[in-house]
């Protein structure tokens, strides 16, 4: 089913998204890949964070943006030319973020955009914490670049392509691959295609 959604989004929106939905995302999302994940993960573990005082990790200065209800795009773009918002900007392989993802999801993240399979621990966390995993088309970096209307490095500038960017997107095309019930399109779509051929 085709859907237009806005980011960030709440748990109600998460529940409405089903594996196989073709979505166009508009709103604010954040880029983070391997090195930025490691840095946030290490900072959270080192912080001995407790939410007893009602303050978030972001409010306490542990991580550079509030994970609550937000969407992370696994992206390290090419540099922007003069007059461009951002360079080529397709998804990177999500599996490499699996080590860090359960902790990040437990702190309120609602969506991830990447490509490729996720491990069982991530799928379990997606169900437990009620989140959604989208795939964008790998290798379509020039096309996806056009959906990013604003981009600003907000943290970890020293990481270059791996810095955290706050981005405004319009009609960014993605496919719901793993929904909050644990349905996994990578398994069902290939199976359905095979069955349709026999």
């Amino acid at each position, binding site marked *: 089913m085709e859907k237009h959604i806005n980011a960030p989004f709440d748990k109600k929106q998460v529940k409405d998204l089903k594996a196989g939905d073709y979505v166009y995302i508009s709103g604010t999302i954040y880029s983070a890949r391997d*090195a930025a994940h490691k840095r946030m993960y290490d900072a959270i573990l080192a912080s001995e964070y407790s939410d007893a005082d009602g303050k978030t990790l972001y409010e306490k200065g542990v991580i550079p943006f509030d994970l609550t209800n937000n969407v992370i795009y696994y992206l*390290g773009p090419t540099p922007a*030319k003069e007059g461009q918002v951002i*360079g*080529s900007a397709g998804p990177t392989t999500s599996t490499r973020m699996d080590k860090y993802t359960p902790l990040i999801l437990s702190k309120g993240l609602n969506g991830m955009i990447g490509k*490729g399979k996720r491990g069982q621990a991530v799928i379990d966390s997606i169900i437990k914490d009620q989140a959604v995993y989208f795939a964008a088309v790998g*290798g379509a970096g020039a096309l996806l*670049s056009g959906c990013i209307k604003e981009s600003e490095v907000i943290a970890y500038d020293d990481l*270059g392509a791996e810095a955290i960017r706050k981005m405004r997107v319009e009609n960014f095309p993605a496919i719901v691959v793993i929904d909050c019930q644990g349905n996994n399109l990578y398994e069902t779509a*290939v199976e359905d295609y095979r069955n349709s051929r026999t």
Partner: protein
Amino acid sequence: MRIIKTESIIDVVKDMCIKANIHLSQDMEDTIRKAAAEEDSKLGRQIMNQLCDNLDIAARDEIAICQDTGMAVFFVNIGQDVHLEGMNITDAINEGVRRGYKEGYLRKSVVSDPLLRVNTNDNTPAIIHYDIVPGDKLEITIAPKGFGSENMSRVFMLKPADGEEGVKEAIVKAVMEAGPNACPPVFVGVGLGGDFELSAELAKKALTRKAGEHSKLPHIARIEEEVLDTINKSGIGPGGLGGKTTALAVNIETYATHIAGMPLAVNMCCHVNRHVTVVI
């Protein structure tokens, strides 16, 4: 003997880096467009069409086809009648990469140490394979390699008794395990024979073959076709979301090997199979 000044290579390499990352060669582009037209899954076709549009946008806006502009991998064939004069040729190639990745707005994706992981900020050093060949020409091929697919590559130290069936099974296994991670549709580069490291180098070299060409060895050409057919019957499809276009080619390069072994390397490459060759 012919003298080539190595300083003259710098700008050639710079231009090759930029061209390879923005424009796919015509044979590769034709292969992708043909597969898009023939894909029979609805979502698969939608994804293939996005990839075709992506190629158009990259060319129009002179922007990299994919944000992973890779490690700069080179195959350099030096004619034995060439005398290289001036700076070290490796330094010249790296200087070309440095300038190309900066001036072409390409991503700097190289860290200086695998564990310390500090970005070199200029995409050097390149990976350069040198070969000495007959003649008085210098042939340089660049094949920038993204790591989404590189990470899904495998080396299998097969036994002679595994035979043709073992070869086919191992290649198919590598592609199935790669699944959606390698950005299908993929090109599958295979090195068969040699030893441990030569098989891997042959697998990478196999990816630089012109699209649509098969091995000149009839028994290998047949295996290429049969394995491609098996892979495309898997249904993995574009983006790993179902369809008949899982691989666009299986290219196998072979070399003599030891009586006790049959090394097999599978180098996965996404559909952005970039390479440019210049002869000086």
